[in-house]
């Protein structure tokens, strides 16, 4: 710390002490693995840690107990797909939050908070009602494929409108952005309300599932929808990380520094929409993951996106797996919608962030 001796400066807050990137990622990976192991063992049908390796087929069952077949069924058809879906959704939501915050240069941005998730949910709900009606008879068989696409389109439309509202000659206003997000969320929610009003009982049950957010519908086919988007996001994150860093200077300044700002914005908007949309289509609106995870990580490892984005994915995945385990055990045998849980934890956290930054954020 030769830097501290230079001109008689004592250590003040504001000095950044950051752990090495490899160590950070390794710790987060261990956290994710730990959360997954706990999630595998607890639930309606408990599988003690000792029986886990055999049930997973890691080594032959020594005891040859009668539980083996049941354990395997529970693990492979219910628990593993659910944990995998939870992890992927958590990764997508956390990283899309981080990208959105980078794009808007604002740590308070979150796809669920500013209506992007609501836009996706509205489009998904519209798809449910539409494909269920007489007109939609011919496309009903492809509802599984249609929902993620509709949610993506809804999220994309919302993000583009939000960006257009919030930015003016290269500057984005935090106040306009948040207020615009509230208005957009209200419009989308009104749309969802209208759909609820005209929906029949079965449609209503499907729509309610989106409104509350739940992972209970996690199946292998849903993994097949999530995985390609997650893979694409991982690749894209590498290419936009540096641009998002420089964008913190402002759009004009990022351009002066050699960033193709228009291209970066286009990629980021499509990416955020795809990640949020596909997550919404699988588990409904789950808020605050995208705001809590990147904020915690910035405090620990700094704001550079090259590390922040993959670290957000890992921590988001670990938190989501943990939250889902809690959601399905806390009121057993019933199951709490995970959206309620993340909001109950995330909203006070968000308020805490606001209180701490009251002096810094000028609206």
């Amino acid at each position, binding site marked *: 710390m030769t830097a501290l001796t230079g001109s008689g400066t004592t250590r003040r807050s504001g000095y950044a002490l950051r752990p090495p990137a490899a160590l950070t990622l390794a710790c987060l990976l261990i956290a994710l693995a730990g959360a997954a192991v706990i999630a595998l063992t607890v639930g309606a049908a408990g599988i003690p840690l000792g029986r886990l390796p055999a049930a997973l087929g890691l080594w032959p069952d020594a005891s040859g107990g009668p539980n083996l077949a049941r354990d395997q069924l529970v693990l492979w058809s219910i628990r593993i797909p659910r944990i995998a879906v939870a992890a992927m959704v958590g990764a997508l939501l956390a990283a899309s939050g981080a990208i959105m915050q980078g794009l808007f*240069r604002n740590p308070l941005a979150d796809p669920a908070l500013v209506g992007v998730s609501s836009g996706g949910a509205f489009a998904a709900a519209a798809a449910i009602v539409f494909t269920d009606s007489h007109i939609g008879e011919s496309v009903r068989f492809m509802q599984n494929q249609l929902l993620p696409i509709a949610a993506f389109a809804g999220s994309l439309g919302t993000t583009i409108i939000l960006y257009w509202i919030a930015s003016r000659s290269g500057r984005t206003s935090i106040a306009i952005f948040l207020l615009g997000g509230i208005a957009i969320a209200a419009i989308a929610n009104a749309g969802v309300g209208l759909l609820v009003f005209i929906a029949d009982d079965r449609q209503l049950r499907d729509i309610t599932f989106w409104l509350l957010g739940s992972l209970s519908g996690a199946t292998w086919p849903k993994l097949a929808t999530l995985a390609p988007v997650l893979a694409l996001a991982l690749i894209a994150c590498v290419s936009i990380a540096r641009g998002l860093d420089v964008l913190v200077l402002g759009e004009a300044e990022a351009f*002066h520094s050699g960033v193709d700002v228009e291209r970066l914005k286009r990629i980021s908007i499509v990416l955020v929409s795809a990640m949020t949309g596909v997550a919404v289509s699988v588990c409904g609106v789950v808020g605050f993951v995208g705001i809590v995870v990147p904020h915690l990580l910035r405090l620990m490892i700094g704001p550079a996106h090259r590390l922040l984005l993959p670290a957000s994915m890992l921590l988001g995945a670990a938190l989501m797996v943990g939250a889902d385990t809690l959601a399905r055990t806390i009121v057993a045998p019933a199951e709490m919608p995970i959206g309620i849980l993340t909001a109950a934890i995330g909203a006070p956290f968000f308020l805490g962030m606001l209180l701490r930054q009251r002096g810094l954020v000028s609206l």
Partner: protein
Amino acid sequence: MTAILEAQSISMTVGGATLVDGIDLRIEAGEMVAIVGPNGAGKSTLLRMLSGDLRPTRGQIRLKQRDIHSYAPRQLAYHRAMLSQHVNVTFPFTVEEIVHMGAGDTGRAAAQRLVDAALGEVGLAHFSHRQLPTLSGGEQQRAHFARVLVQLACGEEQHGPGLLLLDEPTSSLDMRHQIDLVETARRRAQNGTAVVAVLHDLNLAMRFADRIVLLHRGKLAVDGGRAEAITAETIRRIFEVDVTIDYTEGGVPFLLPQTMRPAGPPTA
């Protein structure tokens, strides 16, 4: 002398208002040019056009004999660097990380050498691991100046002398650091960099620049050496202030405002 930048009758019209009106400008390698003028004269608009950020509604700008808008952003950044007036960083990047952003895709080792040199030059070496948002306004401005110096150096190592644009670079600096900044810019000019700065303080402009470009209502009023550009008559006509211009023993001009003229219809 080779022209780094040539602007041919460039104009900027926004919603019926003409902010910049038919300006011709030619800036040579190694020149120090100050753009001055009253509020709303179009100084910042002109600078943003010269940076390639704003596209003129009429006229053309050529950077190193090529249309400035034909460069891709990455290429353009090699040939011109620009320091904006207000840069507000919301995330807790350290000073060093911010200055590194100037290096673009330069190799890690080479970039680090330039970053260290630039931090030393602006006197922030001991602050390199501080988070930028915790610094004072003047310290942040010096950090951004270091970032721009790194960008300039990276470009000049590969492509020869470039263009350095500064928008009110001294606005939040104390006297010591104002002088340091001017001297740093002068060292760059001596190595061939063309330096163009928008300045508010006419005294500083006279110390800073070999040549002064005086704007008035979007038009180029005067373009010349400091002695011909800054006269009591010009200042009275354009700024509507009576001034006394005197010289120090070393022959450096300085300017003292006397009285305000009574308000009245503009005579220019």
